[in-house]
C-alpha cells in the first residue's frame, strides 16, 4: 500500500520546487510573447483603423448641413455617430467619432489639431471637423483589457486615461512597494524575535538587558500604532535635512516595523518561558548544545515558526496600508508606489469605469492572500 511516510521528504520538496519552476516558466513565456515590458510612465501610442496617408481632405460641408440645427451639425451628420467626452484633467470637452464609420466615409474628413477648442471648431465652417486623435483612433485611452496593439504585444490589463500600460505600471509599483514592505518585515522580525528571546529565554541570565527590553516593549505597546506614525511623521518633517527627502520613506517603514514588534515579541516570549525550563530543552542542554543552537535549531523552527509567519503576513498588509495612508495624507508620498496607484484608481472611478480600481485593489488583495497562504505551506511541511 502507498504510504506517504515512505516517500522521502527530499522528493516532495523536489516536486514542489519543480512545480514552482514550471509556473515561473509559464509566466515568463506569457510575458515574453504576449506582453511587452513597457516603461510604466511612457504613453502608449496605439492607433486602430485607418492610416493617416489614406485620408483625403475633400469633404463638402453642404452635403450634411442641416439648417435647423447649425451648431450640432458638424458632429451629428446623417450616417455619422459622434460622441462627446468630458476631460476632467483639462476641464474641456473632447469630440470623438468611433472608428467603424471611417471606412465608409474616407473622402469626407478634414483633420484639425487634437486639442483645438470648441470655439475654434465652430468657426471652421465648410468642412466636417474631427480631431486628429479620434480620427485615427489613436490615444483613445483607456484601452480595454487584452488589447492587441501589434503582432507581438497584447496589453493584458489595458491602459489608464493617461495612456500608460496598467500591467507594467502595476508590476513596477508592486515591486517598489514590496521592497519597503520587506524593509518593515525585516525590522519587525529582528526586533520582535530578538526581544522575545531576550525577555523569554535570557530573562534570568541578562537581567538588566531583558528588563530594558521589557520596558521598551511595554512603552511601545501603550501608544497606538497610528499615533506613533503621526509622531514620527512630524518629527521627520522637523529634523530630516531637506537634502535627503528620499530617506523619509524607508525610515517611516522601519519605524512601523519596530513599533508593531511587541505583538510578535509577546508571543515568542510566552513560547520561550514555557519551553526554557522544559525537560526537552534541559535534555538538549545535557547533550551539550549551546544556547544559540537550542534557540535557532530547535525552538524557533519547530515551535515559533507558525507564529512568526502569521505575524509577518499581518505586518506585510500593515506596510501596504501605511503606503496607502501616506499617499492619501499627501505626506512624503511616492509616485511609483502601489498606494499612489490605489489613490489614482479611486479618483478615476467616475471617469472611465471601475476596472482600474478593481484591478489595483485585487492586486493588493492577492499579495496579502499570498502572504497568508505561506502559513499553509509551512504547516503542510511540518505535517
Amino acid at each position, binding site marked *: 500500500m502507498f504510504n506517504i*511516510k515512505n516517500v522521502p521528504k527530499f522528493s516532495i520538496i523536489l516536486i514542489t520546487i519543480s512545480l514552482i519552476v514550471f509556473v515561473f516558466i509559464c509566466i515568463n513565456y506569457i510575458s515574453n510573447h504576449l506582453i511587452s515590458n513597457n516603461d510604466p510612465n511612457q504613453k502608449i501610442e496605439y492607433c486602430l483603423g485607418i492610416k493617416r496617408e489614406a485620408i483625403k481632405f475633400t469633404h463638402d460641408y453642404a452635403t450634411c448641413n442641416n439648417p435647423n440645427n447649425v451648431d450640432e451639425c458638424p458632429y451629428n451628420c446623417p450616417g455619422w455617430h459622434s460622441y462627446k467626452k468630458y476631460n476632467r484633467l483639462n476641464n474641456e470637452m473632447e469630440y470623438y467619432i468611433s472608428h467603424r464609420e471611417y471606412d465608409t466615409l474616407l473622402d469626407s474628413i478634414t483633420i484639425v489639431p487634437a486639442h483645438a477648442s470648441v470655439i475654434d471648431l465652430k468657426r471652421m465652417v465648410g468642412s466636417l471637423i474631427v480631431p486628429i486623435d479620434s480620427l485615427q483612433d489613436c490615444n483613445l485611452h483607456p484601452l480595454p483589457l487584452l488589447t492587441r496593439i501589434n503582432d507581438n504585444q497584447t496589453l493584458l490589463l489595458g491602459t489608464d486615461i493617461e495612456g500608460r500600460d496598467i500591467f507594467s505600471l502595476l508590476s513596477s509599483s508592486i515591486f517598489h512597494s514590496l521592497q519597503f514592505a520587506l524593509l518593515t518585515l525585516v525590522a519587525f522580525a529582528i526586533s520582535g524575535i530578538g526581544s522575545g528571546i531576550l525577555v523569554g529565554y535570557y*530573562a*534570568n*541570565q541578562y*537581567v538588566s538587558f531583558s528588563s530594558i527590553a521589557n520596558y521598551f516593549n511595554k512603552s511601545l505597546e501603550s501608544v497606538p500604532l497610528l499615533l506613533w506614525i503621526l509622531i514620527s511623521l512630524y518629527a521627520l518633517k522637523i529634523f530630516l535635512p531637506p537634502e535627503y527627502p528620499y530617506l523619509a520613506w524607508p525610515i517611516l517603514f522601519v519605524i512601523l516595523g519596530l513599533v508593531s514588534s511587541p505583538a510578535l515579541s509577546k508571543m515568542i516570549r510566552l513560547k520561550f518561558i514555557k519551553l*526554557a*525550563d*522544559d*525537560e*526537552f530543552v*534541559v*535534555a*538538549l*542542554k*545535557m*547533550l*551539550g*548544545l*549551546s544556547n544559540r543552537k537550542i534557540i535557532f535549531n*530547535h525552538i524557533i523552527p*519547530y515551535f515559533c515558526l507558525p507564529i512568526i509567519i502569521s505575524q509577518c503576513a499581518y505586518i506585510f498588509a500593515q506596510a501596504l496600508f501605511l503606503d496607502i495612508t501616506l499617499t492619501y495624507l499627501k505626506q512624503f508620498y511616492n509616485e511609483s508606489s502601489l498606494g499612489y496607484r490605489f489613490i489614482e484608481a479611486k479618483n478615476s472611478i467616475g471617469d472611465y469605469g471601475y476596472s482600474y480600481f478593481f484591478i489595483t485593489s485585487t492586486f493588493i488583495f492577492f499579495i496579502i492572500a499570498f502572504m497568508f497562504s505561506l502559513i499553509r505551506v509551512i504547516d503542510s511541511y*511540518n505535517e
Partner: protein
Amino acid sequence: MNSVNDILIEVKNLYSVYKMNNSQSRFILNDVNIEIPKGKTIGIIGESGSGKTQLISSICGIQLLSPGVIYGNVRFNINGKWLSVYNKDRDSDMNCYLNKPLHATKKVSSNMQSIKRDLIGFIPQDPKTYLNPFWTVEKLFKQSHRLHNNHEIPFDSFVAKYLISAGILESKVEDIIHKRPNELSGGESQRVMTGFVFSKSPKIIIADEPTTGVDVTTQKRIIETLKEMSDNDTTTILISHDLGFLDHLVDEYFVLYNGFVCEYIKDKEEIYNQNNLHPYTRKIVQSLNRDNLEQKARLETTPEQQEYLKCCPYSIPGFCSQLEHDIDNPEMTYTEKCRTELPEKNIDANEINSGWKRCWHER
C-alpha cells in the same frame, strides 16, 4: 581517601541558590563537597525534594530553577587532565547575587559543552518528554552518527546495532525508526533513549530515576543493560529514592539531606549496618519494605533508637537557610543546630578507605 587518579569528578563548595518572591534566598544545594570515583557505579539517594536532580544538573552547569545561581568549583579528570567546568566562589554577601549572576567564562563553558556532548550520557526519568517532539528516531540517531561515529559504520547498521542492544527486536527496528516520540510506547521510548545514550559510547552515564513509572519487567531489562555498561570502563551515576533498585547495581552511596551530602558510604554492605549510619540514612533504609526476612530483621530497631531517629526531620527543600535566628540559643537540639550551621565532615582517621558523615549527633 581516593588517590587523585581514581577521581573522575571533583565537586568543591557547590551551592545552588534560588531567589524567592519575598526576596529571600533558598539553598537547594548547600556546601556540597564530593569526589566521584572512576569506573564505579554510584547511587545518590534521598527523599524527593532533597536536591538529587539539582545536584546532577548543577554538576553539568544547568540551573533548573530560575531565577537562581550556582556557585562552586567542579572539575573533571579526563585522561589525567583536569578540566574545570566552572569556577565561581560564593560571595560573602549572598543577597547581592542577583546583580552578579553566574557567568562561566567562554573557555570554561566550551569545556563543559564538549564534555556533555562527548562523555556524558543522560537517561532521564521520562524519555518521551526529553525528546524533540518533531524529530523522528531516525533524525535523532543521525545526529549522534554524525557527531560520534565519523561515518565509520553505515547509518543503517549503526542504528540497528544500538537499538537492538537496548532491547528492541530486530524485526521492529525499521518500524520504530520512522516514529516520533508521541507514537512510541513508554517502554519503547525508554529503550530508544538508552540506545541513543549508548550510541554516544559515553564514559559517564547518568540515570535520573530510570525506574519510576515503569513496570517490573522493563525495570529488570533496564537493570540488565545498565549492568552491561558498568562492566566496561564507564562510571554510572544513578539517582533514585528506591533502595531496592539501587541494591542490584551500586558500589557506593551518597546520601542527600536537605541539599547537603550528609553521608558517603563506601562499602555497599555497610548500609545495612545500623549502628554506623547517619540517622537520616537509617530512616530511609528503615522505610524499605522488603520481603527478604533476613534483611528485615537486621533493620528492626529498639524504642531507644526510635527516639534517636527523631533528630532528623523529613526534608523540606531549602529550610536550612530560611530560619536564621536562634543561633546563640544554648538549648538548641541537634536538629535545630543542623538548620543554622552545617556540620563538618567526620572522617575516621583509622580507616582510610571508609566513607564519612556530616552530623552533629556524632560529635
